[in-house]
């Protein structure tokens, strides 16, 4: 029973309400790191890690400090503080354990801090009053959905390089149109999970 609920949360956050294509969060890395499938997927994993860690830490913050003291209004500020610190921690650890990945992600790793998907996730967890396990699963699903969206766009962009695109559409315009069509395609998942 509980597992089914968790599974539904996973499917919901990964596909039905995909963070990028349905909720329109995290567009910056979506457009900025999707030139090649390899880097897109690496970015996806890094963001998933940040999402899960932040979800758990912000949930703890909410439960043990903000709610007991009635400081819900501090949510935005406190969450950003947590997220920024977590990203820095992850970057430091990554620099030591996997220098190649660290170098290939480059500036986009610290930019995950400003990824509104991370803050959005933390706030949604608070909004939906999930418990810690649900929050972690929610974050995992969000990360997987994010990675999927990035990989899809990267795959299409790699093909687009060889396509004959009219001059007016070359570059950002065609990418935005592609993203829009991807978004419409994901509407097909609507109704899969009763929300």
């Amino acid at each position, binding site marked *: 029973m509980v597992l089914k609920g968790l599974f539904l949360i996973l499917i919901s956050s990964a596909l039905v309400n995909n963070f990028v294509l349905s909720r329109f969060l995290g567009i910056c890395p979506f457009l900025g790191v999707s030139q090649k499938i390899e880097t897109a997927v690496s970015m996806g994993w890094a963001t998933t890690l940040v999402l899960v860690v932040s979800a758990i830490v912000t949930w703890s*913050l909410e439960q043990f*400090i903000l709610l007991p*003291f009635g*400081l819900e209004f*501090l949510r935005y500020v*406190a969450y950003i503080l*947590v997220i920024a610190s977590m990203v820095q*921690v992850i970057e430091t650890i990554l620099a030591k354990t996997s*220098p190649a990945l660290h170098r290939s992600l480059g500036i986009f790793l610290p930019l995950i801090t400003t990824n509104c998907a991370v803050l959005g996730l933390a706030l949604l967890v608070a909004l939906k009053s999930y418990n810690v396990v649900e929050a972690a699963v929610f974050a995992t699903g969000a990360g997987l959905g994010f990675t999927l969206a990035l990989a899809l766009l990267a795959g299409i962009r790699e093909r687009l390089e060889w396509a004959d695109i009219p001059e007016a559409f070359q570059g950002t315009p065609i990418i935005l149109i592609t993203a829009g069509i991807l978004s419409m395609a994901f509407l097909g998942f609507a109704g899969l999970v009763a929300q």
Partner: protein
Amino acid sequence: MGVVQKIVLAGVVMGGLGVLFGFILALVERRFRVETDPRIDEVEALLPGINCGACGLPGCRGAAEAMVAGTAEVNQCSVGGQAVADQIGSLLGRSAQTGPVKIAVIHCCPSLKNPPQYKDIHTCLGYQSLIGSTLGCSYGCVGLGDCAQVCPSDAIRQDKNGRMSVVQELCIGCGLCVKACPRSAIRLHEEQHFLQLLCQNPENGKAVLAVCNSGCIACGLCVRACTHQALRLEDNLPVVDYANCTECGLCVEKCPKHCLIIGTQQGQERVNAS
């Protein structure tokens, strides 16, 4: 709880969180520190920072790391030249001599009789691989700009005949264009070697005349005009002896095809004409 108390509490909580996470960050930083030689940053600051890759290393950061590690010579940056080599050398306690400053020259100044058509082919390499040389001259500039694409200082422009030429004042001598040209029409020359031939077609005059209005026809007028014994014909092309050449310009005047030039003329005139 009163408003003032709440504000104070909020401040205390945020302050406390800040201190807590600062602590965590410091701990993680210490545990996962990556030791880098501070000299790498200093060497990187001395290098030009263009990341052209001409040294054969991955960007200026890569070059800095290799130089400090000792796997690269301090004079390996041809763009920085002797000045940079000296600075890096004194920083690392090593020294190396650099060669003379080099400039790229594109050896082609054509007005082809049947210029090739480039339907749907966008690179010189593509043209060379797919079509090769069925039309026009097989040795000349294709004109699709593979060299201009790789040039880190944007020193290669297209003239009105559709051929590429190097603006010598901007050329940093990295040599990337030399590698990019599929016809091997670009070569690096010492800056002081002002007299250059804008053709590399080694076929006889009749064959060249059939394909190009301005290619070298090996008539030998330049050789005969030279009063300093600086020119001789080899493989239907004049070869310059730079030890004797005084840049008097007699050969340039005599050439009926106008394919000999002196100094920065190539860059300036052809860019101005386009």
